[in-house]
């Protein structure tokens, strides 16, 4: 009932509904224009830049792999094998997934993870993007909402279907002709939440918008897609993650990047991502039932302590406050806990209110 009332209010006052989001967008555009050009190749590159995120420092992280050392000879052989595969791909202008590379010689590589790590290492060593190596990652992310685009091969993708999401492209850099009237993009941490919102017709209710999920820790393509949407549409990007250290970390990957991919930070990070929810302060404010709250485990506490030491918080005092609140309360909660207040609380009350009244950090 309440959800229906809000839905009616949104329809009648959509301009008013998106007022704060539009205002945010203007602020973001202004900050982009006024930001001085930074020379990203300055001699002393700090490991953290609030305008970029985590980036690789020059002169560090050098690893030597020896061919005459028993512990590393297999890795040496794996690296050369993958280099020869990449060489052939580049020469023939064809592409292969990391999975294809693995199946090229499963006995040599042992696991998919070995291939993934080495491909990243080669990308970092040669200082080129992974796309330039002609090795693609199989995308795991999903996207839905007010968005249409063309793949590199000319395939037209329409994400406006209300019932099914579209897989994130495995060739994000080849996407062209992006058409969207979305007011914002919402990154959803988990697939379960994404599907729930899809089932609740969230993209229609809060249209026009785009929803994307990386199903947990995002793969490179999902991150590239978020980056692409920001670069092209320059609309606010919000993150909806669980109120726990893991969710927070996932949000930081989209916003600031990961250590593993720090050498490609400029093409992967979106420092303007806003934290929409679920905030630790929301748990108290909304009086989420106690039985829905979970105690922080030792691992959570260790991760929380580690997160609080990261350089992110120097430019995000409100985030720090939220994390300290979590630390003090010693509880965490998943987004699903909002369903204990009301079944459609998330899509009908929580998110609309957040978006309407600027409840983001």
């Amino acid at each position, binding site marked *: 009932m309440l959800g229906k009332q809000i839905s009616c209010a949104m329809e009648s006052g959509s301009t008013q509904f998106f007022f704060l989001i539009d205002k945010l967008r203007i602020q973001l555009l202004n900050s982009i224009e006024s930001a001085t050009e930074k020379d990203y190749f300055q001699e002393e590159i700090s490991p953290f830049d609030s305008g970029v995120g985590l980036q690789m420092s020059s002169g560090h992280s050098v690893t030597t792999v020896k061919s005459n050392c028993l512990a590393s*000879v297999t890795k040496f052989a794996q690296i050369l094998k993958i280099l020869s595969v990449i060489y052939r791909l580049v020469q023939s202008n064809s592409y292969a997934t990391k999975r294809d590379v693995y199946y090229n010689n499963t006995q040599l590589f042992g696991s998919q993870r070995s291939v993934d790590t080495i491909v990243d290492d080669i990308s970092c060593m040669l200082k080129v993007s992974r796309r330039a190596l002609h090795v693609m990652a199989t995308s795991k992310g999903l996207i839905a909402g007010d968005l249409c685009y063309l793949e590199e091969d000319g395939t037209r993708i329409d994400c406006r279907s209300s019932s099914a999401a579209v897989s994130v492209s495995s060739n994000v850099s080849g996407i062209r002709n992006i058409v969207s009237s979305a007011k914002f993009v919402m990154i959803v941490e988990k697939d379960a939440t994404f599907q729930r919102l899809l089932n609740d017709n969230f993209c229609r209710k809060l249209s026009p918008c785009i929803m994307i999920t990386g199903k947990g820790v995002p793969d490179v393509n999902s991150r590239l897609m978020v980056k692409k949407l920001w670069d092209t549409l320059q609309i606010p990007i919000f993150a909806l993650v669980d109120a726990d250290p893991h969710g927070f970390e996932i949000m930081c990957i989209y916003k600031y990047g990961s250590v593993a991919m720090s050498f490609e930070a400029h093409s992967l990070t979106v420092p303007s991502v806003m934290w929409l929810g679920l905030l630790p302060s929301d748990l108290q404010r909304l009086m989420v039932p106690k039985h829905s709250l979970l105690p922080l485990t030792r691992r959570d506490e260790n991760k929380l302590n580690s997160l609080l030491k990261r350089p992110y918080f120097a430019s995000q005092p409100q985030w720090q406050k939220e994390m300290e609140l979590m630390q003090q309360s010693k509880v965490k909660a998943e987004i699903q806990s909002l369903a204990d207040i009301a079944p459609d609380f998330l899509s009908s009350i929580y998110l609309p209110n957040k978006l309407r009244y600027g409840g983001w950090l």
Partner: protein
Amino acid sequence: MSKQGRRHGSGSTGGLLILLWDEEAGAQRLNCTVAAAGSWCSGVEIKALQLDLKGRMFPHVSPSLEPDPEDLIPFTELHGSLRLLLSFQMKDARHWPSDWQSDVEAVLQAFSLANAGIQIHLKLKFAQKTSVRDFRAKIKAKVSRADQPPLLLDVSCPEQKRWFLSKPHGWAKRASWCQGGHPVDGGRLPLGIPPQAMDGGLLGDLSVRLVTLLHPCVLQYPNMPTELKSIKVLVYNPCNIPVSGPSGFFQTLPSSMDCQHLGLRGLQCPAHKDPEFRVGTVFTTEQWENEKKCDDEEQESSHLPVQQSLLLFLLLQHRNPFCSHLSDFVAADMLIEHHLEEILCNNKPAVMAAIRTEIGNAMKAQNQRKKQQEKLNSAAEVILSSTMSIVSCSSNVDFRNACFDLMKVADTHALSSHLGESLRRVMSWRFLPVGRCYSTQMEENLLHHGSTKSEI
């Protein structure tokens, strides 16, 4: 003498002079003088020893038999005043084997191995010819013993095993070779005394200590394949004097070894009498053929796998609280030597098991290296094929020429073989310094003072 000396806590250094001389040219009988000096003799009642030895072994020798004093001067100058001087006449030399000199040298060499602190000088003066040979340990290692003074072993790599000195490789400098070996203590094995020996008067506690020594040492080359080529077993009486035989017991060793379990195809006991084989029992190993053999020429030039020999010391130890006089010790040692075959046969399962364990440990190290070599070879194939794939497929002339120039070849075929050889060389000859190895950086010290390390 050394045993009694050790009981008094004396050192184990000094000299031993063996002088063989004929009184006049053309004489058929040779005289022998044995002289000793140094701390290894201290604490011994020399007069009692000399009388005992003379009475026991040489009762009919003329007391006026004395060597030329000039032959003793260099010895005393080096080691100090003589503590023992014993001269006796030997049997008619005409009945000796033609290579008796080699036999004498072999015994002294074996003695020197387990008594590395004693410098042995052999001087032969007969048929108007003089020859001198010194036995001196360049590198010594102490082997601690719980209930006895430590043993000092000569761990220098034998001349014939030091192939790397005659052909130093461009990529492995001489300075990076270990000049010695590292003895491994196999522990003490109690032995039961057989009834025949007991009836003969041998009482007390008898045991054998096994110590192994592998030559040449390749610890600093962790990727280098090795092959155990021979096993030499040396038996020493409780006075650390090498004893001959027991050949019967050791002849059964090959059949008692589970060679397959050890990773060997077989053990052979060769009949020929090379100098190396005069003392002790030597077994040559038969290895399993490798499925993939490198080109013979390449293997020969690279000296791989490195052929090693295992020296197995069987050091008999005897303790009898009723033995107090030197004559008691000498008598006990003679009994042990006399009944050695029976003693070892009486304890055959335990002795064989102990020897099998020691050989097994050496083979374990070899097999480990073999497995590592297989891993390296497997990776080398991938590295080579991947590299050649890139070079062969490249249409960039500059890149290809740069590759050919770097490897000093003219075409991809030569590049492949040259690259493969270089890669295998880099892999096999990887050098990792090991603190306990005797590198030639110590050579200057060795020349002057020798080197002693506590290994065990």
